[in-house]
């Protein structure tokens, strides 16, 4: 599973970086920079929580 952001929908609320700091860092404008690698198993639950919490639903989890 991989984490992606729809950069058009993203409005830099930054919740994702708070809920998944191991995988997501914010740039200096507040937009998430996301590790593109396969998400480790132990972070999947956190990633789901981050995606559900995104106010614009820009954060996506993708298989493969």
């Amino acid at each position, binding site marked *: 599973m991989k984490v992606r952001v729809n*950069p*058009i*929908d*993203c409005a*830099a609320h930054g919740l994702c970086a708070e809920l998944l700091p191991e995988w997501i860092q914010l*740039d200096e*404008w507040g*937009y998430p920079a996301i590790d593109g690698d396969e998400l480790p198993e132990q972070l999947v639950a956190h990633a789901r929580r981050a995606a559900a919490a995104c106010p614009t639903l820009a954060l996506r989890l993708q298989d493969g």
Partner: protein
Amino acid sequence: MSATAAPTTVRVSVGFDDGPSLAAHLRRHGGLPVVPAEQLLDAVDASGLLGRGGAGFPTGRKMRTVAAGKGATVVVANGCEGEPASGKDTLLLTRSPHLVLDGLQAAASAVGAKSAYLAVHAGSRAVPVLRAALAERRDRIGVELVLVPGRYVASEETALVNLINTGTALPTFTPPRPFERGVRRRPTLISNVESLAQVALIARHGPSWFRTVGDADEPGTLLVTASGPPDIRRAVIEVPTGTTVGTTLAATGVDLAQCQAVLVGGYFGTWFDAAAADELPLTHRGLRAAGGALGAGILVGLPRTACAVAETARVATFLAEQSAGQCGPCLNGLPAIADALTRLAHGGWHRELGPALDRWLTVVPGRGACRHPDGAVRFVSTALQVFAADVAAHRSGRPCPAHRSAPVLPVPTPRSAR
């Protein structure tokens, strides 16, 4: 290095001076033969044609993917030519519109399309020519002319699909890619107009003929737009793929000895110093190996008299203004990069900008819905490498005297000039 017998081979550009009428077209090319769908797909595959819009993806494979889609498909011919330093698509459309329209019909039949579009920038001088050309034809598959607003990213694939579907010419998030789900949610083939002109020739003469010139792996001919000293004016030339940058520039009247560097691939492309550029082959593979990209076949020679830093700053400012403003990293990052370069070129630079610029050039690419920020960053990054000595001089407060002189690299809007 691939050897080339002659600097130019006239195929797509044959009869460019004989007028754009259907009668003139039929005189120089004859009629479009009726080729069964599967046979044309095989022919385009076997030809080895790579798309001429910039990415260089195999046209045959793209057509086959769309043809395999469910139900009726759609074809969009992209003649927008967003790159300011390019002129080949507009020239092709104004001089030989029927060759492109033949290719569009052939491709549409081959992929099972029921409707076709031809997209050009609103206000392009190709528009009246295309209206006249469409009125002259009795095509099986109707072609609708789509007028695209003048923004650079409006001609990006997903933006064209979005424009046709919703009237908004802005890129969209992928997947789905247009070949999966595009115009009216149907599998959509988006093909550059030069690629379609080549398809029209392949339909007539077959893949073996197509492969008789050019590079063995990336065969055929290529329209190149070149500009540079002495007179800077743009010229379009058709050369076999694999022709060197030096040979191509010489054939268009650009004097490489008067150039300090050559921009290969346009404003999404890569700078090479003049000596390094000379022997580079015009192939995707060859240029990739040299750290560049062929893009849409654009060469710009920068005169020795120009200030490379000021030119880079001006183009970076243009590219920042061309952001659709949809994605944060592009919306914020490109203006920050452009501002730093402008300060470097003309004054106001400070020490902290060095690490900041390096950081922005690292953090911005790969994070937009489209590739606009990636291309802009590549342009700036290679400029900083190739013009490192000039950059160092500017940083230490010794800008070249030419930084105030008239701009050389073309940008369409005067407000981005400084």
